[in-house]
């Protein structure tokens, strides 16, 4: 696979992102010269510990929280599991979880198999979404009961980019004395977050979604909130997460958080404009194409579009011939036989669900790339439709 030099038109940033050059530069010394263990007594190791502290400060700055509230983990999934299992153990008498039908597998599958982790049976309420992927807050309030141990709702959906009203939902949970977790893997760095002002108890984030490398994540735990380590071991992370720190990646994540803060404005202006140009252009030039997800309450970088009567994997593989990278919610791309659970929860008809393509941009995308994709897509869709037995004709 070729990289760099713009040989790839990369529009799959909700899957993973390019490691930013300044992030590489910041982390490299910790893979070469500064290999000491932060826990060591000598200065050689100690200076590495300082770098970890600095990274923690950078993360807390982006999240708007205290440094003590930041725990480094290996990924978003580990953060999610740690948060949910902590909350459940903190409220051993409560046997109810509230979540949504559109969560990432990290939460979805955990909730589905929760009894095998806890040894107890839980009732799980999975909130419905509208055809635009939005939650009904009345239904949410009704779902909260005396028995509810935790609410877990993603901040922004990875497939459609739809953003949920997390501040409000967290407040509602707090009013009922219920712990609140949010999987903010897609939201951090794209929309401003000030945890100090919010009633969120746990928040998960992942490094590789904001231009840090894979293999590092963060769990935010509000001061005073119940916590049970998922990985037991040494005293690292204040005893919250044993295991020698993934120093280079932690340093990288700190640098990436600073970059995200610097770029937040650009993400919400230039990147958003590029996304809108791409979206409007595709919807205008390709008949029977439709937008999945609410247009307003959305991440600035994501656009999920269905092309009716054609299948997503076939579209992606034709795009691949032009080195255009994106994702699909079709059955065939997932290895399962049914289209994405998110699109099905939204009630997207089968004519469209199998032909959905997710474009997710980053600050590295250019106007030329948007023009290139706009130039190639109509022909790709048209060719496949000529082959489709369902295509009613132009």
């Amino acid at each position: 696979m070729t990289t760099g030099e713009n040989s790839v038109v990369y529009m799959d940033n909700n899957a993973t992102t390019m490691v930013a050059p300044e992030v590489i530069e910041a982390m490299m010394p910790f893979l070469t010269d500064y290999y000491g263990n932060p826990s060591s007594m000598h200065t050689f190791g100690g200076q590495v510990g300082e770098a970890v502290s600095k990274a923690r400060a950078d993360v807390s700055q982006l999240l708007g929280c205290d440094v003590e509230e930041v725990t480094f983990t290996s990924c978003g999934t580990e953060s999610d599991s740690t948060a949910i299992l902590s909350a459940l153990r903190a409220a051993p008498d409560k046997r109810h979880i509230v979540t949504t039908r559109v969560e990432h597998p990290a939460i979805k599958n955990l909730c589905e198999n929760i009894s095998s982790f806890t040894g107890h049976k839980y009732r799980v309420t999975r909130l419905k979404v509208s055809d635009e992927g939005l939650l009904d807050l009345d239904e949410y309030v009704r779902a909260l009961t005396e028995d509810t141990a935790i609410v877990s709702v993603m901040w922004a959906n990875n497939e459609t980019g739809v953003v949920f009203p997390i501040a409000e939902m967290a407040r509602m949970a707090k009013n009922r004395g219920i712990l609140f977790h949010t999987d903010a893997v897609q939201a951090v760095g794209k929309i401003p977050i000030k945890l100090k002002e919010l009633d969120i108890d746990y928040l998960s984030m992942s490094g590789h979604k904001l231009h840090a490398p894979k293999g590092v994540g963060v769990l935010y735990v509000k001061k005073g909130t119940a916590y049970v380590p998922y990985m037991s071991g040494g005293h690292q992370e204040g005893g919250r997460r044993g295991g020698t720190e993934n120093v280079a990646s932690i340093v990288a994540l700190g640098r990436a958080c600073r970059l995200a803060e610097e770029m937040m404005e650009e993400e919400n202006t230039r990147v958003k404009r590029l996304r809108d140009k791409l979206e409007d252009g595709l919807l205008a030039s390709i008949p029977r194409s439709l937008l999945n997800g609410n247009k307003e309450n959305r991440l600035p970088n994501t656009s999920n579009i269905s092309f009716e009567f054609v299948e997503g994997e076939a579209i992606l593989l034709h795009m691949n011939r032009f080195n255009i990278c994106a994702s699909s919610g079709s059955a065939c791309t997932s290895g399962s036989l049914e289209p994405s659970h998110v699109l099905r929860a939204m009630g997207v008809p089968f004519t469209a669900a199998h032909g959905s393509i997710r474009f997710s941009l980053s600050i590295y995308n250019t106007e030329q790339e948007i023009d290139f994709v706009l130039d190639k897509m109509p022909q790709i869709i048209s060719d496949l439709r000529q082959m489709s037995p369902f295509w009613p004709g132009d």
Partner: protein
Amino acid sequence: MWEYTDTVTEHFQNPRNVGEIPDAQGTGDVGSLACGDALKLTLKIENDCIVDAKFKTFGCASAIASSSALTEMVKGMKVEDAEKITNEDIADFLGGLPKEKMHCSVMGREALEAAIADYRGLVLPSAEGEIVCECFGVTDIEVSRAVKESNLRSVEEITNFTKAGGGCGKCEDKLRALLLETVSEDLKTVPVIKKAKKMTALQKIKQIEEVLDREIRPELKKDGGDIELIDVDGDFVTVSLRGSCTSCTNSETTLKEYVEKKLRELVLDSLIVEEDK
């Protein structure tokens, strides 16, 4: 990313015979939008010989490639010869398909069969079966046939080949029963072992022995090996490999991938097979 062969990629990128023959003598229409793939095959037949074939396909790369391959294979063939084409033949023509994509080749075979039945004015027997998988509309006849033709031995394989069980998963028990029924029919043995959730230790040992005797030992003997049951303690099944198995470097794989898999499938899916050393 799927690992497609060069032939699959080539047929996907340059599909042959796309279109529809207007006055076709045989038309096969299978699959649906809901299922995520569909194929309409039209054949021009003169003197029982397929002189032209065209297709229209909605589906992934391997569905398009399978359709393209199928049309290339049948053109110029006698109907009675085309009838003998199996899904494995289509997959072989393409240099193989990922196992999760085998249902694409099955769709090709089904369309061909439907087109030939249409030409002869017959009703397909598979359409008369009873629906087992509601999600994908797969009948018991189709499942049994796939089990026999492709020598399927697990529910997962049935799903890969026919899609049955790939949706809500509620038909899993039915599929397992159908699998056992079909397999034991195949082996010409009457008793069908029902998978009981709770078994006494004695029942468990008896069933394990039965499966070892009927299914596993004959296979191992083909390669000059043998197996003996040493002990059953809870879910732990201790066995001893004999004959050529003792010196075989793959004995661990045989134990886990074959013996354990078989016992889990036919007796209890929590069983763990260990070798007595």
